[in-house]
């Protein structure tokens, strides 16, 4: 430690877009992508908590969950899955466009991603409204005339909890992308600096992965089940 005051290099002049705490663009890139991965680790455990609740109750009440699940609309679920995977593709293409420096393509792919994300949320809103009319929103108005009324209410609590948290993440993602579009149009990103695009992409793909699990767990578990 004694030679600590000796200097390695003196980054007095900061390269454009490199924040003052970083030595160079490479360090900044490494830090921001690692930061997003660490944040996603946090997200895994955040969704993990509610997934754990799902696993426990689905283990305790498999039949009730099957019956309840069969009441969801598979067609809409499958459609939404396709839409969200599509939005992951367009997001990946947006990152690609930023890497090669195609500004118009970048803006276009982000807008496309936002459009697909909005379609997903629109379908979700439609599904929620439908459940509302069917009195399947847990709480005092919940009504279920089939079997397992109590456990079915737990299933629907989890359905709204899990898809609600997921939808909230999408709304946040759409907000970030709105900013990305503005910044991209202003020419803030290029081959040397597109960290925000990359890490927004990581976030969006993560949200996609959550849905990849939610779809079968909520929509498909009971389809083969015949009372």
């Amino acid at each position, binding site marked *: 430690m004694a030679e600590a005051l000796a200097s390695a290099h003196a980054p007095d002049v900061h390269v454009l877009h490199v924040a003052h705490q970083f030595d160079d663009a490479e360090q900044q890139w490494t830090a921001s992508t690692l930061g997003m991965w660490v944040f996603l680790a946090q997200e895994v455990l955040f969704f993990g908590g509610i997934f754990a609740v799902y696993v426990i109750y689905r283990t*305790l009440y498999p*039949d*009730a969950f099957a019956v309840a699940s069969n009441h969801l609309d598979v067609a809409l679920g499958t459609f939404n899955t396709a839409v969200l995977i599509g939005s992951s593709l367009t997001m990946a293409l947006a990152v690609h466009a930023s890497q090669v420096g195609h500004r118009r393509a970048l803006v276009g792919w982000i807008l496309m991603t936002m459009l697909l994300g909005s379609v997903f949320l629109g379908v979700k809103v439609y599904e929620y409204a439908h459940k509302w009319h069917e009195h399947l929103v847990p709480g005092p108005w919940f009504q279920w005339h089939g079997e397992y009324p*109590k*456990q079915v209410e737990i299933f629907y609590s989890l359905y709204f909890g899990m898809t609600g948290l997921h939808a909230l993440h999408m709304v946040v993602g759409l907000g970030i992308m709105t900013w990305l579009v503005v910044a991209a149009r202003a020419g803030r990103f290029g081959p040397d600096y597109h960290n925000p695009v990359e890490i927004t992409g990581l976030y969006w793909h993560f949200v996609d992965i959550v849905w990849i699990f939610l779809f079968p767990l909520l929509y498909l578990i009971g389809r083969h089940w015949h009372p």
Partner: protein
Amino acid sequence: MIGKFSLIPPSASTIASDVDTLFWFISAVTVFFSLLIAGTIIVFMVRFRRRREDEVPRHEDHGSYALEIAWTVIPFALTMVMFFWGASIYANMKRPPDDALHINVVGKQWMWKAQHMEGRREINEIHVPVGRPIRLSIASEDVIHSFYVPAFRIKQDAVPGRINQAWFEATTPGEYHLFCAEYCGTIHAGMIGKIVAMEPAAFQQWLAGGTPGAPAVPVAELGRQQFEQRGCQTCHSGQPGALGPALGGLHGASVPLADGTTVIADDNYLRESILNPHAKLVAGYSPIMPVYQGLLSEEQVMQLIAYIKSLPGDHS
């Protein structure tokens, strides 16, 4: 005993002395290591105190694998002794003897309600004979409570939605504190009572006493009344072809379920099957029984279970 100051709680159950022996063993380990560390620190502090402002010890310490291994392995060995010792006591605590007297206990904000199988009820007081194991079925009507008798070294939470078990065998006649140990709302500190341990003869006399004018009805009999009032026998008639499974000898038997698995029909299974009958449907039956969740109190459920247990029959 109640009201007497002492630094050691009375030890009045068969398990209490086991717990205490282990407690003092861990205490000895704790005191030994605390004094070892504190003593060493004080000795070093004095012996190696800085004598000059510019004093710098120049020798190089390179650590010592032997020491590191020693102070990893020795504490680990001690903790393993504690683990196995503690686990064996715990296993004992969790396994009530077969000949135990059975008492139902229900916690609700903010009182303990107990009912002896012979029918006598009590609130915030439980009379028990000494020298006889007592098994408690503990349930809760509202929030989580915890049934705690320090003199017996036993504690069991009363968790809504299930029936927990605890057991003890009192050794010395006397009155002992009963506390609620899990925070349960406003009058948590007032949810206390006492356990009255009596000589067996005195206990039998007490048990026969009951409320003047109202002869105590045994719990299983109360269960039978519930059973008939609610028309359970229509389906659970025990006849071949009945809509519901036969209940005779059911308790403790293994039951094949509709989903292909089997369960042991313990208290919690019976409780769930009364309140939410479809959750674990018996193989070969349809889910037609009404849901009794919200219609029966925990006490009534326990009475029904007692009745089911009392039914003779072979369930194999």
